[in-house]
């Protein structure tokens, strides 16, 4: 699969070229367009896997796009404006925040993992961990900024996009106590330890939603 990222950083569009019979798996709803010889099949990969994904704030189903009888093209996009990146899976394995996942080669196995702190954060920190070999496309809300962790670092969970699985992480409060963490407005943060790369996104979807949502009139019941 050859991936071209067009219109970065604000209006990214991932253009994937598939060789004959090659396929790509994507988050449902991510497809923008495709050539007519590309077949789409919808799979859950097993009920338990699908339920786990649903629990993680993703869709139950994932779509697989396969080029038949020649080369094919598929376009993918994210709902919010932002940058995209292609991660090489194999030599390095990646953890991805669920909302940042766009698509991957079918040879990449993506496992859903819930971080316990994520249940309370509202930031929905559900983590997808890659296994196998291939490529993975991620999409961010805002710009993607790469940070190299050497030792330790703290990131707001809402600004996390992806990180190397070699990094140790714990989700917790950002200040010294729960009250100060709540007052600080930072919600939950991710404490990283070790060596590796972290991709952060420059905007926080929840904060953005709250900023605009707070100005809207209340919903009529």
């Amino acid at each position, binding site marked *: 699969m050859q991936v071209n990222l067009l219109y970065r*950083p*604000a209006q990214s569009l991932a253009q994937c070229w598939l060789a004959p019979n090659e396929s790509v798996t994507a988050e449902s709803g991510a497809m923008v367009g495709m050539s007519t010889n590309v077949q789409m099949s919808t799979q859950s990969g097993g009920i338990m896997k699908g339920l786990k994904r649903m629990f993680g704030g993703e869709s139950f189903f994932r779509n697989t796009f396969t080029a038949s009888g020649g080369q094919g093209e598929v376009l993918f996009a994210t709902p919010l*404006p*932002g*940058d995209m990146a292609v991660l090489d899976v194999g030599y390095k394995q990646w953890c991805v925040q669920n909302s940042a996942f766009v698509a991957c080669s079918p040879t990449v196995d993506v496992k859903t993992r819930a971080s316990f702190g994520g249940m309370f954060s509202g930031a929905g920190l559900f983590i997808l961990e890659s296994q196998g070999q291939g490529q993975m496309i991620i999409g961010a809300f*805002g*710009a993607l*900024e790469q*940070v190299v962790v050497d*030792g*330790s*670092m*703290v*990131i*707001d969970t809402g*600004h996390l996009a992806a990180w190397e699985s070699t990094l140790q992480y714990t989700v917790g409060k*950002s*200040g*010294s106590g729960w009250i*100060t963490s709540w*007052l*600080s*407005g*930072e*919600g939950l943060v991710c*404490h990283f330890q070790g060596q590796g790369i*972290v991709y*952060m996104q*420059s*905007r*926080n979807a929840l*904060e*953005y939603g*709250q*900023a*605009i949502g*707070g*100005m*809207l*009139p209340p*919903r*009529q019941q």
Partner: protein
Amino acid sequence: MQQMIKHEPTFSMLQLSLAPGEVIVAEAGSMVARTSNLTMEVKMNAGRNAGFFGKMKAFFIALIRKMVGGETFFVNHFSSPQGGWVWLAPAMSGAVRHMPFQGNAMLFSAGAYLAHHGEIDLRMRWGGLRSIFAKEGAFFVEASGQGDLWVTSYGAIDEVYCNGSYIVDTGHIVGFDASLDFKIKSPGGGLMGFVASGEGLVCEFTGQGRILVQSRNTGSLVSWITPLLPG
């Protein structure tokens, strides 16, 4: 202290590198990431050297700001004996701009404040009776002193030099020099101009000084989205 602003103008982020012992004050909720040796202390948004009464006053002003300006009540103080860095970002898509202060004073719209460093005093200033009708709130934040301040916007920031007089829509004001006089009024004059022009209220500046203008306006975004929402 060193600064770096990246991903302008839409997805701007600000990185501040702190020397040992330096303190950065930032709007609550604006932190993206930090080195883990930096401690974060939550404090009320009172001025420096504020005594008990100053703090009480700050509390009430913060309460009003929270209600009218949608601003946060608290600020976070970042510091470390070893130094470190912190990344900050605003909630909306927009720019980050560095404003150095050398004893001058500027007024900013509520919500424009992102962070500051050094001997800067922040005070609330009443925008006049008419500003109550402006969606953006009736208060400006007055910043003065010596140091650095970073402001954010919705959209790009344009700097206009007011030489004599200039008019800006209240929803598009980010900030302006305190040397300027301002008057909030309806653009066409009279009630008809206010209701029919669709321009809301404008701010008429007179004098000499800089005005920072933002290319987008949250009030307009909200009034565009609201009728489209399912009832």
